[in-house]
């Protein structure tokens, strides 16, 4: 039993769909309550009904933004699911780094990157295993709809629980500094990550073509038409030999037939159908 009225929940579903194309299914009232109660309190409101009334009036940009952010913030951790990063390290990056030796540049996009653990994980993988790219222009763009998550990404500060979850302590030792009760990722890695505000369902900034795109565990929140639209736009931003990573429960099947699943080591990625065959593992350099 939740305290959200049917009418308010209906309004929130429409609001979320219009603002971010995110589908809030019937039965997810508990999720709205759990995410929006802290927002209501932070704004000095009595309950979610007052928050919904404020959003309806359209007079508070802050209430709309905070509510949207609270409903779209996803779970994340360093090396989340582990295996996609092994595939990236052992199969995808060796081939791409070799192919870019002339350009000396790498462009990577992490969509819906939340508080930044995913782009920083990729930055650590590059620093640890690809010393030959030192001196290259390596740009990892982390995008999210939430300004709060982007602020956290830029600061690169994490709680003890966050650094305990998935991050090998040897990497903590190498790439983090203690800041009071928190841990901050070192500047050399923060400089590799560019945090940008992007609503996937709306207009995207003009970007370079990407070598690798991480679009994990975000498509599941959109309706089919928006999934197709996002995948199509992401595909157009991929280099011909680039790689796309989706979440374990996500697939482009039936949405975009020009993306082909390529098993590579313990996990898989998606490549353009016209591109080269499955990448073979190359000996690691470090």
């Amino acid at each position: 039993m939740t305290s959200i009225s049917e009418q308010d929940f209906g309004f929130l579903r429409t609001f979320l769909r219009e603002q971010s194309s995110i589908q809030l299914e019937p039965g997810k009232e508990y999720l709205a309550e759990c995410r929006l109660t802290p927002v209501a309190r932070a704004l000095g409101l009595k309950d979610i009904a007052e928050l919904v009334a404020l959003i309806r009036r359209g007079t508070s940009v802050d209430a709309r933004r905070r509510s949207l952010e609270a409903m779209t913030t996803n779970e994340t951790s360093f090396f989340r699911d582990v295996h996609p990063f092994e595939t990236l390290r052992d199969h995808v990056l060796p081939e791409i780094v070799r192919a870019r030796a002339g350009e000396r540049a790498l462009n990577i996009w992490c969509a819906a990157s939340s508080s930044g653990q995913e782009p920083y994980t990729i930055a650590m993988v590059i620093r640890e295993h690809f010393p030959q790219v030192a001196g290259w222009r390596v740009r990892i763009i982390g995008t999210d709809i939430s300004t709060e998550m982007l602020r956290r990404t830029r600061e690169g500060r994490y709680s003890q629980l966050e650094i305990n979850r998935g991050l090998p302590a040897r990497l903590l030792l190498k790439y983090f500094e203690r800041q009071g009760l928190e841990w901050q990722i070192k500047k050399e890695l923060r400089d590799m990550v560019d945090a940008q505000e992007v609503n996937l369902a709306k207009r995207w900034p003009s970007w370079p073509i990407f070598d690798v795109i991480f679009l994990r565990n975000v498509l599941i929140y959109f309706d089919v038409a928006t999934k197709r639209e996002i995948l199509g736009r992401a595909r157009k931003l991929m280099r011909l030999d680039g790689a796309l990573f989706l979440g374990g429960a996500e697939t482009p099947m039936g949405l975009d037939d020009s993306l082909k699943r390529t098993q590579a080591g313990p996990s898989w990625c998606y490549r353009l159908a016209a591109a080269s065959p499955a990448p073979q593992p190359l000996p690691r350099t470090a």
Partner: protein
Amino acid sequence: MKILIVDDSLAARSFIARMLTKQGHECVMASHGGEALERLTSEEVIELALVDWNMPFMNGLELVKAVRANSRRRDLPMLMVTSECELERVALAFEAGADEYLMKPFTDVELSSKIQLALASRAGTK
């Protein structure tokens, strides 16, 4: 998996054992390094040790060093589980031969994640 929990605090041992038992592991306990070494000598099937740092008689760091110097148990995966949060301490633990490092406090999610990392790290050293 049979896991040895080495901690001088009964409350800490029980807390960790509860989490691990829920995840399907079997736990044995020791309250300091010396007792842990005896356990490891008599119980061949122990597959992982979770080791606190500050303990009487033989502390966690000394225990890790002693196990790594023991020809029969030197490949035992060892995870330091401690409230020592300084980077210098983390470095010392790795120098002594620990496979991973978990800082207190933590939940079952972080414990499980660090156990996987410790096992993978030890497997990678063989």
